[in-house]
């Protein structure tokens, strides 16, 4: 029964950045779904969105204002680890607010959690980079590439994944001809591409965002580089596909940590497509969606007036592998609420699969490879959690 009450939740996301805006839109979309079903714990949800400008000071201030002035108990965000981290250490943990990030990948969070400094308040739906790196290496091996150049975005995510995959390649006996950091906001990446061309690799691996990814690939192809490309999930973007062109993406393979072969993932894609007139493309969208959904369900489970700690404690009840499976849409949300109201637990089947958090708030996930097809992004191959783990162990 819908009541005349609203509960505020906070979101601190980089809306002033090209790839940040869709992440925020997706979070809002999840909130809308929850509200359609009558809200959370009997109240409508109002997501107060603040821009971080990718500036830690601004992000922390926004988070603090949301916590202190709007009294939110749940905070979504941020994207950059460099913003999420100070928010965690100086705002959410001291205030006992739950923080759920879609996209921060830094291993520093895991260590912080291990040291017991997150008080169990931090979660993220972005799998640690190890899985993607391993799957990328697996793809290269299966394709039979013997030499490969690595381009990585020079931030915490890129450095992490770039370093990991280089090790994986080496373990597989694939020569890494170059490891090239792609710095943000550079006028031209011509020099970087030229540098990578020197080693004459059979393929390239890219841990890049669409913006610089497009520039690098266009440059790379025009200079006659190979069209054998492997990329991390961040390039899952229509904009990338269009600006590079299908004719060059024939042997492009992407990786992602993704859903098991449930319907939920494709359901999300369909629903998203209907809502936004286009499939989810761009980094972090499914993650953002799941982060929001899980957090809202946990909030529901924790009941009215729950504190951040209460909500955090209920996350396990949403991602219980033995719980009732629920889909990531309005029907699923409504169903989940019913189950939870009855004291049960659910297994949320999200856009990124049936998400499970470990003790540090991290998710590990099965993986998938994907390619660009005529009408969008097509899943190519599903690699189950056990397969991923076995492969990773074989690399050690």
């Amino acid at each position: 029964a819908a009541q005349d009450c609203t509960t505020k939740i906070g979101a601190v996301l980089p809306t002033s950045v090209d790839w940040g805006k869709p992440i925020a839109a997706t979070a809002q979309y999840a909130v809308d779904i929850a509200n359609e079903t009558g809200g959370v714990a009997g109240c409508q949800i109002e997501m107060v969105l603040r821009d971080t400008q990718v500036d830690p000071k601004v992000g922390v201030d926004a988070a603090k204002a949301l916590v202190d002035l709007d009294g939110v108990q749940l905070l979504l965000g941020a994207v950059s680890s460099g913003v999420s981290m100070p928010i965690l250490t100086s705002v959410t943990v001291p205030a006992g607010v739950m923080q759920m990030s879609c996209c921060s990948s830094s291993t520093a969070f895991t260590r912080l959690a291990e040291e017991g400094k997150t008080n169990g308040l931090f979660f993220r739906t972005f799998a640690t980079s190890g899985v993607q790196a391993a799957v990328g290496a697996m793809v290269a091996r299966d394709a039979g590439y013997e030499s490969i150049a690595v381009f990585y975005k020079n931030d915490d995510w890129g450095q992490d994944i770039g370093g990991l995959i280089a090790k994986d390649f080496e373990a597989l006996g694939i020569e890494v001809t170059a490891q090239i950091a792609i710095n943000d906001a550079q006028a031209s990446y011509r020099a970087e591409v030229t540098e990578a061309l020197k080693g004459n690799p059979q393929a390239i691996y890219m841990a890049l965002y669409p913006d610089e990814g497009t520039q690098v690939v266009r440059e790379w192809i025009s200079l006659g580089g190979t069209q054998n490309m492997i990329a991390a999930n961040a390039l899952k973007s229509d904009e990338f596909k269009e600006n590079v062109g299908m004719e060059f993406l024939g042997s492009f393979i992407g990786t992602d940590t993704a859903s098991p072969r449930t319907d939920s993932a494709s359901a999300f894609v369909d629903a998203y497509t209907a809502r936004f007139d286009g499939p989810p493309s761009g980094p972090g969208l499914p993650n953002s969606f799941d982060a929001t959904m899980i957090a809202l369900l946990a909030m529901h489970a924790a009941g009215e007036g729950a504190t951040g700690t209460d909500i955090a404690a209920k996350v396990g009840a949403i991602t219980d592998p033995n719980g009732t499976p629920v889909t990531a849409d309005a029907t699923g949300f409504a169903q989940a609420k019913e189950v939870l109201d009855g004291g049960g637990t659910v297994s949320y089947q999200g856009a990124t699969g049936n998400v499970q958090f470990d003790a540090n708030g991290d998710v590990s996930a099965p993986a998938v490879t994907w390619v660009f097809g005529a009408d969008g992004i097509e899943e190519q191959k599903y690699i189950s959690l056990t397969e991923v783990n076995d492969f990773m162990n074989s690399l050690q």
Partner: protein
Amino acid sequence: MIGVLSYLIFFATVASILSIAVLGLNLQWGNTGLFNGGVVAFFGAGAYGTLILGGIPQDGLIGGFQLPYLIALFGGMVIAGIVAWVVGLLTLRLRHDYLAIATFGVAVAFENLVRNAAILGGAQGIRGFERPLRDLFESALAYNAAFFVFVLTLLILTYLFLERLIASPFGRLLRAIREDETAAQSLGKSPSRVRLTAFIAGSVIMGLAGGLYATFYAFISPQDVLPILTFQIWAMLIVGGAGNNKGAVMGTFLIWAAWTASGWALSRFAPLEVQLYTGSIQFVLIGFVIVGMLMWRPQGLFPEKLVVSQSAAAKR
């Protein structure tokens, strides 16, 4: 109500920390005419220095010496001073825009270094700083309040130090060198020595701000030392009024308030559809605030006064 208080304390702490950095810049630009385009390098040197000296040990990272807080903070200032000394020796021959771009380059190099050097935390940054005396306080709010008092005290001390300094013959010397170096030299002053002194002193103050900043957030990463911070600190000084310490502090609070309040106001009052554009709109608003300020009061809120040194003024 507690929430509002808690936020205000938080806001004031950040603004006070930034004020200290702005005061350091004012010594360099406002009083000496040194166009330092690399504020973040010195701010960052203090921040990283303090966390390296005072933080806890971590795998693969340099430092983690867990020195007592005040010593770590002081160490951060010393490190900022050393960086400034080296940079100063190289660049202080340059003037105006040339100096600005050279020091800006230093800041880019600094950011690059901390971003790429694994022992300095790389892009992940340095975390794990134990807040000093945290256990003495019951609540986070009380602790924040206490930390604010500490920062405020340092701000006041810095302010008094600078006020006294620029009212002294040293300040007169700085201004003379800002105006006409050749003439000052012909009166027996050594511009290169004085410029270097002022540059180091200002940078050490920025280093203090950096150290406070890093310990307040218990975290520092390359994202904290991007050029935008240099810009923010400059904007605060210019809006407040270069050459005037009171203006510098007021400018900081004002700009920082505008920066944060515009985001807050948009999140509160803008319709939902617009909210996704708030980022861009906020930057447009901030742009208008700065431009409007400069059109309305180009000398800043508190223009520089013609000062006669303190003892002389006192006798008037």
